[in-house]
């Protein structure tokens, strides 16, 4: 191995001395492991990583890393992290949040971090339940799911985190799943490489309060039929034999089977770099059982980051006045 490719860190270097205290079988373990693996390859010195979080199980993650970490109040992590980035633009700042944290208390801050395109990597662990507070419905809990606060089944319409992110003009939007470690690692690498705000939704199993919520997407016997893996420039095909696909019927997507007059040319082609996020939004709306759900990168476009825009704005207009002249003001007089 040449010196040039020698990683600065090993995943082990990124472990803190704290005992990891998630429940046995929690999807968070897998995410933590993949995250450490990816971080170690980025060539970023450990002291330049900052992990910011809020409240909930996901938000404990910074304590398990040996980087800088700041666990704020519930939902506020995007705002806190924006502040860190403003103070020190060269830091590699990550936000770790959950569906309760990011979409109940923190939805406003999340939206604004995304629209500003702050150079943050936001990992949203979506287990569709409030886990840390012991099992209440969250904003993403699906209709019919029984929780402590929805004993007869949740009836409120769930939010779709990626639809919100796209509506908030996010420049990078992706979804992955805790147990598919290769896919998870790939998506984290893509997010890490993005300049600007990146939102990654991770389908994450809560063993205790919402176990099996994503079985449809992990069960080897059915997942080929329930999941589409997004690939830029490739047709949106799925199925064990890759003979099913998505096509547009007017403004509506529909699932079709190749053959009987339907050819590969009828199938939508994924374009993560499209200027308008229309296709990405359409894909973010797909949900079972009538549609397969998409995993992968929905959108990845370049636009100026908050920091760049702030710097540009500062350079426009009149140059700054000196502090001394501001203190003296426009209308001062001397008493001898």
């Amino acid at each position, binding site marked *: 191995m040449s010196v040039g490719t020698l990683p600065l860190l090993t995943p082990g270097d990124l472990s803190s001395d704290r005992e990891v205290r998630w429940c046995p079988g929690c999807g968070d373990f897998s995410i933590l492991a993949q995250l450490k693996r990816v971080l170690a390859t980025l060539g970023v*010195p450990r*002291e330049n990583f900052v992990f910011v979080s809020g409240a909930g199980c996901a938000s404990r993650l*910074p304590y398990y890393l040996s980087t800088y970490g700041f666990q704020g109040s519930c939902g*506020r992590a995007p*705002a806190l992290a924006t*502040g860190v980035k403003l103070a020190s633009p060269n830091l590699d700042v990550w936000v770790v949040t959950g569906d309760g944290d990011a979409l109940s208390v923190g939805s406003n801050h999340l939206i604004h971090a995304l629209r500003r395109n702050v150079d943050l990597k936001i990992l949203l662990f979506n287990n569709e339940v409030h886990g840390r507070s012991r099992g209440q419905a969250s904003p993403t809990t699906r209709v019919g799911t029984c929780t402590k606060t929805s004993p007869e089944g949740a009836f409120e319409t769930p939010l779709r985190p990626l639809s919100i992110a796209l509506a908030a003009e996010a420049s990078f939007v992706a979804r992955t799943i805790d147990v598919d470690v290769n896919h998870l690692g790939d998506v984290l690498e893509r997010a890490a490489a993005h300049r600007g705000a990146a939102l990654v939704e991770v389908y994450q199993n809560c063993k205790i309060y919402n176990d099996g919520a994503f079985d449809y997407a992990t069960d080897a016997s059915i997942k080929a039929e329930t999941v589409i893996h997004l690939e830029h420039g490739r047709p949106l095909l799925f199925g064990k034999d890759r003979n099913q696909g998505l096509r547009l019927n007017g403004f509506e997507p529909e699932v079709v089977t190749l053959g009987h007059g339907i050819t590969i040319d009828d199938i939508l082609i994924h374009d993560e770099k499209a200027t308008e996020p229309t296709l990405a939004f359409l894909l973010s709306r797909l949900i079972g059982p009538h549609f397969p759900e998409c995993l992968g990168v929905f959108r990845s476009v370049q636009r100026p980051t908050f920091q760049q825009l702030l710097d540009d704005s*500062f350079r426009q207009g009149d140059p700054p006045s000196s502090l001394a002249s501001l203190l003296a*003001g426009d209308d001062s007089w001397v*008493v001898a």
Partner: protein
Amino acid sequence: MPSKQQRLAKDSAPKAASRVVVDERDDLVVRFAGDAGDGVNLIGERFTASYTAQGNAAFTCFDAPAEIRAPAGTLAGVGAFHVHIGGTQALTQGDSLQILFALNPAALRAHLADLEPGGLLIVNSDAFLPEELEKAGYTTNPLTDGALVKFRAVGVPMNQLNREAIARVKVSPREAERCRNFFILGLALWLCDRPPEPTVKWIRETYARNPGMIEAGTRTLKAGWQCGEACAELSTRFRIRKVHVPAGRYRQVLGIDALALGVLAAAHQAGLPTVFTAFPAPPASDLLHRMCEWKQPNVKVIQAEDDLAALNLALGASFGGAVGVTATTGPGLALQTETLGLAVISELPCVVIAIQRAGPADGMPGKAEQADLWQALHGRNGESPLIVLAPRSSADGFATVREASRLALRYMTPVIVLTDTTLARNAETWRVPLLPDLPPFGVAHGVPPNRGAGSFLPYQRNERLARPWAVPGTPGLEHRTGGLEKEELTGNVSYDPQNHQRMVEQRARKIAGVADELPLLEVNGPPKGNLLVVGWGSTSGAICAAVKRGQEQGLSVASAHLRYLNPLPRNVGEVLRNYRRILVPELNTGQLCSLLRATFLVDAVSLSKVQGQPFLVREIDRKIQELLQ
């Protein structure tokens, strides 16, 4: 056909100089009230400058119309510039109004109640037309129906005299209308015996590219002056006694501007980048506007999506090694409660400039109150002490914000600067500081590992009990902090009962210990006596003036002003016990008073006012007399 008053002002022969009486006084209160579009600000500012340029101190405020664009001529559309000119200090708006200029009936109706009996009222008689009277709600003309008998009322046809003065000069109709302000100013300068020459010079400089305006403005200014000379009804001129002020450069500074300059100066003194954030809500939004306007390379200004985000942005910046500063109002401070607790437990520096307004909830935006003291001191969950400072005047906001910043960095703590709408919106004369007056704070981050074997203890305390500021990007100082209780020294999450007890005590001792370096509370007046009047914030001016009155009458009364509200200066208890009675005037229902009673077991008496208006000197004076009977 011109009225009798108009004839008087315009046509009467020059009166003999001997008929003019000079009213020599220590201070003078003047108000120019008109329609929002009339430009009373311009008149007021130039009038004030004619005094301040000679070393007089002035307290000014602009009473903006209630609505942003209210219809002209209506009560809602009235704006007024109010100025209190004093010798070396004019810390209040003044108790009574000696001269009122009312430029239309609505202005008269809105402001007449404030004019002292026998006060001089000058109205623009040209504006008292039937439709204008009706818009102001008058059914009869107050100039002729006897409503003004209590005052020395003089009607001046300002529109006509201005038109005549500039008849031969080529200016646009709009400019001609604007010139009327110089006519009024000329008359005001004559009344107060101020030389017109500096204003003539100002007109020349301001309209350097508009010779027509220079000519017209100068002519009508002189016409205003001549009007004073000629008008037989104007038989008094006012003169303020000469004062001595220390040499230096002076300016009028608006409270908001003093706060903004304080933030910029603190950034300069800290030698660190500053992140200033705010969510727009009046009057904090005015501070945000100023910060956007006065951009500086080391200060980033961000408009946040809400007050919670504002403080989280600032606190995140502080974690990142910058100085986080945010500006908010009382309702915004309520939202920031949560984040202040986080700042307390994580022990990170930040400054919150909280501008109180009348509450609760939205209450009366734009009106003054001091009812957020308890919120600032105690309004958080858990034991969460922090430093609270309050400026005593509009200009003192500058020093207070710098002091807040210095203490935040020195003690790794959030600091609240608690000011109010009165201080923010008023202006006073201020000696401009020079850069050498603003030395570095001497803060440093990036401490080396503070334990053997290269390991780092983020919550190891120094002699002041402050923890190190370990900034991301520094190798060897990686640590995790946040809202959960920390183990002593290591900062690891800990629910250990004894550890929590110790950490609560350490955080409390750290803030209490700040008192060791604070200046002792000083009293104004006898060191022992019958009555001490204690105040904080914007009541300072009225308290000082009332206590001075009492002292002049030989009463055994002193005043003391608290700029540091938490911790209090070390000698407060000792000072309080030197007086038989304690009086605490506050624009709330007795918050500081309760605190002093609870802390020092003294029988302090509250003087409460919650009307959205500052104290008048006589209100405090009356209470002093009552207590000392």
